[in-house]
């Protein structure tokens, strides 16, 4: 436990603790606002009445000078004071001169990339370090073109956009923020898992026998041609398995949601969703069933 406090109070890790507190606070705040709105709507109020509850149902417009300018000025002063105090209290870390011959254990990327580094446990670098970051950026950019639900624009609500919010919160809170925290606080020497009360022992060895998907479930050597085809099938079938079941339901095809979305948007959305869900699925397979690779080829492994 003593060492956990050391890790948390390391100068470069303080921002992560601050971030964690802020993310929790703002999640609570946005949920509070959303529930307030949803309750007002349930009571039969119009959108505007529910949003502007404190303004007698009408958005009053105020002059930017002095109202907004004053606020910007105060916030700028506040941020400056905060930064000053932070900089007086805590010194930026500086270690010894860079030395390519002395590798620290663990070697960690900058903290905001530790979520991706954590994924290296579950995926090869070409997926965790190259494909996934690109899919994340492209996927984020695609959000406005996929989520065409016109409701919930400009105010907090949960009930009017449950799907969009749950997918985003899952991605942001669990696959990003949580992974960053795990990579920072729970990964010690050898990138092994250390609980807060465990000492980061550099000599610790964990015997883990990981086997590939086809060995595990079919008893087929993953490097054999048969293993190759089983792996290919598993990866290739994952996407349709996530994407197509809803399409088989006539009630889904006739639903207003699907009618508005259209087939092209649906396929883009569901393939991005399948990619996103593949991450926790692979993690579960790895952690609980010790599956290393799903698909082994001579050029790359998945």
């Amino acid at each position, binding site marked *: 436990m003593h060492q956990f406090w050391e890790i948390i109070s390391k100068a470069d890790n303080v921002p992560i603790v601050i971030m964690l507190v802020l993310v929790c606070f703002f999640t609570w705040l946005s949920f509070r606002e959303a529930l307030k709105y949803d309750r007002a709507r349930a009571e039969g109020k119009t959108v505007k009445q529910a949003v502007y509850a404190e303004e007698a149902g009408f958005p009053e417009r105020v002059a930017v000078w002095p109202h907004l300018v004053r606020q910007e000025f105060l916030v700028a002063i506040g941020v400056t004071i905060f930064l000053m105090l932070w900089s007086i209290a805590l010194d930026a870390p500086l270690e010894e001169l860079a030395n390519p011959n002395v590798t620290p254990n663990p070697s960690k990327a900058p903290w905001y990339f530790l979520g991706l580094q954590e994924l290296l446990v579950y995926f090869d670098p070409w997926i965790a370090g190259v494909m996934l970051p690109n899919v994340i950026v492209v996927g*984020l950019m695609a959000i406005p073109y996929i989520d065409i639900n016109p409701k919930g624009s400009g105010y907090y609500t949960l009930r009017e956009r449950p799907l969009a919010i749950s997918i985003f919160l899952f991605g942001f809170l669990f696959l990003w923020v949580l992974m960053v925290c795990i990579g920072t606080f729970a990964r010690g020497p050898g990138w092994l898992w250390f609980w807060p009360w465990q000492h980061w022992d550099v000599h610790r060895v964990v015997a883990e026998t990981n086997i590939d998907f086809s060995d595990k479930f079919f008893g087929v050597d993953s490097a054999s041609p048969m293993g190759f085809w089983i792996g290919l099938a598993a990866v290739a079938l994952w996407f349709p398995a996530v994407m197509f079941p809803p399409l088989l339901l006539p009630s889904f095809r006739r639903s207003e949601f699907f009618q508005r979305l259209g087939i092209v948007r649906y396929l883009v959305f569901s393939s991005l969703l399948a990619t996103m869900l593949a991450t926790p699925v692979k993690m579960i397979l790895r952690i609980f069933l010790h599956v290393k690779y799903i698909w082994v080829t001579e050029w790359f492994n998945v």
Partner: protein
Amino acid sequence: MDVDALKKEVTTSQLWRSVMRHDLEDNPRTRVLKVMSNLFMHLHPVRIPRFGLYLKHTWCMGGITFFLFLVLTVTGTLLMFYYHPVKEAAYADIKYLEFDVPFGMLLRNMHRWAAHAMVISVWLHMYRVFMTGSYKPPREFNWVVGVLLLTLTMLLSFTGYLLTDDQLGFWAVTVGTNMARATPLLGHEGPFGDKLGMTPYNDIRFAMLGGSQVAGNALLRAYIWHCIALPLIVAVFISIHFWRVRKDGGISAPQ
């Protein structure tokens, strides 16, 4: 000495009038003119809905991100006065900043903590914009620009990491750029990289580092990306981002 007469003399002079285009009485007319006749204030609309002032609605994270960018520009420029992006000098320059330069440690601390804070505030800004559904039409494209700015913010921070030339920065950047080896087709360890003739000496990682290792060329490249190229690109996208906020109808509100 008549102060009022002097004040009038000054404020009606040609010099004063050439700078200040309007009087400073507090009335509705000058409130508008203060915004309209000043380049920096002109980023704002003249009026906004009152809830645009509510911190529980905006979290103020976009504004804080922009302010931190300005803080980083100023502290970064000051740091550049003391820093040489060469292997022989870089680490010693940081030590010099820490022990000899007046307020050098404070300057460096502010730059580092503001950089971390900016990464956090830009994430939270995205979080808020998502939770209020503010990416919905007509603001789709501005969300795209915002995602680019978020990515660029992390790249700015990442390129700055190496510049201290210490173990922390060196290994963080080594771990980060080693990923580029695994780029499909373009990295020498990536899928099909060897089929395209990729080696450690001609692949995408080599292009990023200016060599096969994180060394002097990588330091210079990180410095140029960090201090010149990325800030310029970010400035362009910030301009587009702010301009589009105005053109897309200001802060989002229910229709």
